[in-house]
């Protein structure tokens, strides 16, 4: 099978999965108790107004008509209107995407930058103190709930260390809503040459990104370590050693590259964990992303908004997984033969 054919097949599967997600979300809403009109105008509202509202939101239609409307809307990118604010769900979702992406990408970068060297060192110095340290760190990392880690980081940096950091370093890692987004900050830097906004953004994202990234750092460290140890035992390593190629080169160029393939796959699979983690990290740090909005929507039982966010997250998840598969297929052509 060519890579093209393989991707088409994966895309078709992806479409099926998204349809399944949309259907499940619709079914959940349909079986959910309570009259949605109550949620929009309140239970004390005039029956006439409630009827009007039901008409307006299409709630009087038979269930299959609502379903078809709903799926049609989703296909055209129309996710309906929020019960609570009457705003378009699509806009409410899209305006929150950048903050979540910033957080997820920052966390991934932190994870890779720390974990890969740590894993390599750990594998190269097996059963030495460095290896034990890395192993202990990864055990703690995968066992710590990230909302608690976030609170402890706030306690450490925004309470205990705030004054000393201010005095000796001249900056702190503040807790609380970021005053500026990455996009705006970069625009300011480009147009006016002022870097202050970007630095403010960096200081604000540090704690949330570490909070979200720790689990992944721990996991990638583990994967890199075990992957490298497996690879060290393979004949090509002995061959390159025999040719007199320096160890550093063997380690980082040949062995690490082969180790990265399974790591990428597992990272793709663990993306759900990253998104789930982002939801809860955002609520801890008041980070204005999708997760923060999802919790608000849940608390208000704002169905259209909730559905919109969840379908959007699933869509992103499926697309990224297809991208990971494509990357995987390029790195290791054997997968397309399955």
């Amino acid at each position: 099978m060519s890579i093209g054919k393989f991707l088409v097949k994966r895309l078709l599967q992806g479409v099926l999965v998204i349809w399944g997600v949309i259907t499940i979300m619709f079914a959940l809403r349909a079986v959910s108790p309570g009259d949605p009109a109550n949620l929009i105008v309140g239970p004390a509202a005039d029956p006439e107004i409630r009827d009007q509202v039901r008409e307006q939101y299409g709630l009087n239609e038979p269930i299959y008509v609502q379903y078809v409307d709903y799926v049609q809307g989703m296909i055209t990118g129309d996710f309906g209107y929020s019960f609570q604010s009457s705003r378009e769900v699509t806009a409410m979702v899209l305006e929150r995407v950048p903050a979540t992406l910033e957080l997820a990408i920052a966390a991934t970068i932190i994870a890779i930058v720390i974990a890969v060297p740590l894993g390599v060192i750990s594998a190269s110095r097996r059963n030495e103190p460095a290896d034990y340290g890395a192993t202990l760190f990864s055990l703690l990392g995968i066992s710590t709930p990230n909302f608690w880690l976030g609170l402890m980081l706030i306690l450490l940096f925004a309470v205990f260390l705030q004054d000393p950091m201010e005095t000796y370093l001249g900056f702190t890692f503040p807790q609380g809503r970021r005053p500026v987004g990455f996009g705006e900050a970069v625009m300011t830097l480009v147009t006016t040459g002022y870097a202050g906004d970007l630095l403010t953004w960096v200081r604000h994202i540090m704690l949330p990104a570490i909070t979200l990234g720790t689990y992944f750092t721990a996991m990638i460290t583990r994967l890199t370590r075990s992957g490298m140890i497996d690879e060290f035992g393979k004949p090509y390593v002995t061959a390159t050693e025999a040719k007199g190629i320096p160890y550093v080169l063997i380690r980082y160029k040949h062995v690490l590259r082969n180790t990265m393939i399974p790591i990428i796959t597992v990272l793709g699979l663990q993306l759900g964990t990253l998104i789930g983690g982002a939801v809860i990290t955002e609520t801890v740090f008041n980070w204005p992303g999708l997760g923060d909005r999802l919790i608000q929507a849940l608390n208000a039982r704002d169905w259209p908004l909730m559905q919109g966010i969840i379908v959007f997250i699933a869509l992103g998840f499926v697309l990224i997984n297809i991208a990971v598969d494509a990357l995987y297929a390029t790195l290791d052509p054997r997968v397309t033969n399955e």
Partner: protein
Amino acid sequence: MIPDRLESNLRQGFRESLLPKLGLVLLASILIMAIFAPVLATHNPTRTGYLDENGNSYPPLGTSYTTEIGQDGEFVEVEVESTSDHLLGTNDIGQDVFSRLVYGARTSMLVGLLGTGLAVLIGVPFGLVSGYYGGRVDDVMMRIADTMLAFPSLVLALALIGVFGSAGFGIPDPLTRFGLIDGMPESTTLPGTVTVVVALVTWVWFARVARGEAMSVRNEEYVTAARSMGASNWTILFKHVLPNSLTPVIVLATIQVAAVILLESSLSFLGFSGTTLSWGYDISRGQGYQRTSWWISMVPGLGIVFAVIAVNLLGDWLRDALDPNIEGEGGGA
């Protein structure tokens, strides 16, 4: 059930490393804490009002903190000292933190074990059928599994709880019911919806493993032999295929208990679990009091960390000895 070779792997792994022993000791302590909570707790964990004369919470033994109180129309700084009555201090509404730590173990262990058990009961038969029959059946069932996997588990769990609400069931506590211990809660709340929901969002991992096992054994000679003797598909599935796929299921189940404990604590932290006697819930209680009363959220968090470490250590040991290639969901929170 476990072949000799694997059994000797298990023994060797346990003998040669300190980690599985540590995991076992930790897990045993937490289970003892959960079972004998009424004996070990020093106070009723739900009783409020253990505060000093100014209404301040007590800090953990050996520590103190300063806070401001209103006195004669102005604010005065006072030092709040710890008391030996409350080992780990009290929270914002004056509940004993140590007793809540002990009781919180119950919720975590109950949801962790029951939730994972339920996920096994859903996922394993699903996967066995899918892998054993193959073809169209397998295609359809695996697309269903893919759809489940497209939801991050925490997000799907939140959506389900959004629909069904979060109910808890009181399980009577024999130690207090029969009057053996006085002054402790007469029942423990099992967050029922949460237990079902964590199973509904994690069963797919078991389905995948069971499917793989069923696929690998369905053409083995003993299955063909059973079939030729007229055994029905269901007999073959549950008498022959199931026992052979149990080893990876056990490994995965251990790993998943850790994931489920984390998931439960996340849901409780967000206030969606239906019980207020839970480590995750207690962490959220302390959120607003970080500046002075750090112990309110620190202590229950340590409970979660130790519980999850214990399960992970045992899971690593089982995985290394029995089935190095298995993949679970991991944390989720």
